[in-house]
């Protein structure tokens, strides 16, 4: 019976998503405008510094968007366009900081922290499972047993 319920669940979810996908089908990607919006979304507006160029309506943002559009239409690559911006406004304009000696800690830091924590856990587990401790009851087990006993005693009263 359980399996039937599972199957029904998945089939109905599947049918529902299929229905939703029918909408998606019709929306085709436009390579050129996708590239422009992708680029302008990854460049930071220098006037309203909380917005990307794509979001910003500041006059400079509009000028820069026009530049991006022109360059894409001239067939320049994304890297060339980014370099053009960096040459004028510095790395500040890139929302995605390039990996270099300055940013290596930014990109690899979280993973280094992760590895550090995993190593620490390995030590803890190894220590917990060392042979002389393996068969002992932990303080918690004893506490739990005592609580159970007390509860039983209370029940008897």
């Amino acid at each position, binding site marked *: 019976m359980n399996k039937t319920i599972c199957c029904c669940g998945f089939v109905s979810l599947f049918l529902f998503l299929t229905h939703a996908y029918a909408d998606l089908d019709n929306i085709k990607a436009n390579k050129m405008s996708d590239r422009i919006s992708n680029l302008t979304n*990854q460049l930071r507006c220098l006037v309203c510094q909380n917005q990307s160029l794509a979001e910003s309506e500041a006059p400079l943002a509009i000028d820069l968007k026009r530049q991006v559009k022109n360059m894409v239409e001239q067939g320049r690559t994304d890297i060339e366009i980014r370099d053009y911006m960096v040459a004028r406004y510095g790395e500040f304009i890139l*929302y995605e900081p390039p990996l270099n000696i300055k940013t290596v800690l*930014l*990109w690899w830091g*979280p993973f280094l922290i992760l590895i550090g*924590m995993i190593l620490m856990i390995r030590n803890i587990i190894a220590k917990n499972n060392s042979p002389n401790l393996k068969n002992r009851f*932990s303080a918690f087990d004893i506490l739990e047993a005592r609580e159970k006993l007390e509860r039983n005693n209370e029940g008897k009263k």
Partner: protein
Amino acid sequence: MIPELGNFLLMLALVVTAIQSVMPMIGANRGNLPLMHLALMSGKLQFVIIFCSFGCLVASFILNDFSVLNVANNSNSALPLPYKIAASWGSHEGSMLLWLLMLAGWTFAVAINKKQLPIEFLSRILAVMGFVSFGFLLFIIFTSNPFERILPPLPDGSDLNPLLQDPGMVIHPPMLYMGYVGCVVPFAFAVAALLGGKLDSTWARWSRPWTTMAWVFLTIGIALGSWWAYYELGWGGWWFWDPVENASFMPWLCATALMHSLSVSEKRGGFKAWTVLLAILTFSLSLLGTFLVRSGVITSVHAFASDPSRGVFILLFLTIIVSASLLLYAVRAPRIGSGSSFEWISREGALLANNVLFLASTAAILLGTLYPLFLDALNLGKISVGPPYFDVVFVSLTAPAVFFMGIGPLAHWRKTEISFLLRRIRGMMLIALFGAVLLLLITPRWSPLVLLGLFLALWIIGSIVTTLVERVANIALKTRFSKLHALKKIPLGFWGMLTAHFGVAVFIVGITMVGAYESEKDYRMEIGDSAAIGKYTFVLDGFENKEGPNFNSTVGKFSVFSNKEFLVSLSPEKRFYHVQQMVMTEASIDTGITRDLYLSLGEPLNDGSWVVRIYYKPFVVWIWFGAFIMALGGIMAAFDRRFNLNKQIS
């Protein structure tokens, strides 16, 4: 008079919290009962005082008292009443008072639950909370007094920022602050337990419902903020990785790790040192968030106008609280027992993996938010860290966490045989993979990310169903009840866990679909023009002018057709707010379960045509639905009977 009363009440609260933070601590150390009971009294009293003080601020706003600087700067006589009330937390000063009110509210809630906790422990908790209140009261009184007067009074105020004149402003900040400030409760529990030297599973059991409730408020607060940004800012984004969003997201991640870690501490007595550290970190991150928003060290949309003295004060206070608690931790933690042993493959193992991944992603966000500051401080130039960084790093750290989330509930405590575990997850793994691939076959464009997202969502759902089925079978086997009867025996907390995990699945479907298939188009439209996106056609019928209470607006009238059939009419607005001389875009959205159609007016062009932005956002509401389902799960878990010690005693 009212502002002076409010001011006086703040001073009074300062005295009460000073007593609350010192006396009970002495009492707890000496075993002096009257001093300990002082904690309960002052805990309740300070709430009443601060509540009245906040009432004075709201009254000043409602009564249009423009001799108060804060009111003059953030309100106007034409502002509608709900926004006048909301304006009382629209400025830095007012929102600090709201922060304090929430803190007092949590203190009050802890103080009236006195039957549950031993008085010695409770008085230490309240003393810690009292100290935090004391610090923030000092901050408010000396650097950010919301009751400051100006002479001569102004004839009218300069109005609330139009961006904030929205129902979202009425509800989002209180919710978010409830969550933010709620992190103080597990922190105070942890510090009190460290001080008392008593860290056992009862401590974890007491701490759990509070932590969960704070997490629930934080979840709702963040989700509301995201939804508000989505419909208000007019460019259809729902998360920007803005420093201030990050500031609220970091405590959320840490609190999520804390909740899971607490469950191990309670049920198995394990991870205790780790759990205490997480409790301290969660509140530290919430304080750090306050610092980031209010000190001006970071550029953000949400940041309040900054004043260096404020930054210095918060940093000082933050340093005192965090370093004191971390030092206390360093001294006391080595004596905390490690709890019962476990192996890699076990429920503890899965929960620990989840914890570590969550903490690593918190670290990633912290690093991304502060890295530009680090480089600048070292004179290494200025960089920006934006969505491309966070998307990559965050997803690669949380995707494995979601995978472990599917395994955790199925593994046994302490030790699980691999072959046994594999047998249990084999079925759901196959179904999830098969389902995800099937779904991909019918998509127009596929990408590895969509495959991953759909797989993870189905994986969680599979895990939920398997867990539930097994639990029912187990209960039925033990009690010889029928399966239906066994279903009723499942505790609320367990349902809460399943519900929250289901929320995650819904959320993942949302972000996957909207990330991969959303589309955005800018059109230049005149009256009578039509624009098409997919099967939807948008026709601009005309414009109307509308007078609001403190603005006038141009409303675009659009008819939307789906496959030539009329679907809905949408009316995005361009509003002009008189007092602040500001133009605001109000998007118009047709929300559906599988897609949102999102329309916003851009700029009018010289020839009478308008730039119109049309967005197609598939499954976008699933993001907030998912978050609310998670919060619902949290509420269910927090109200599990197990945590209600009053009932257990009776």
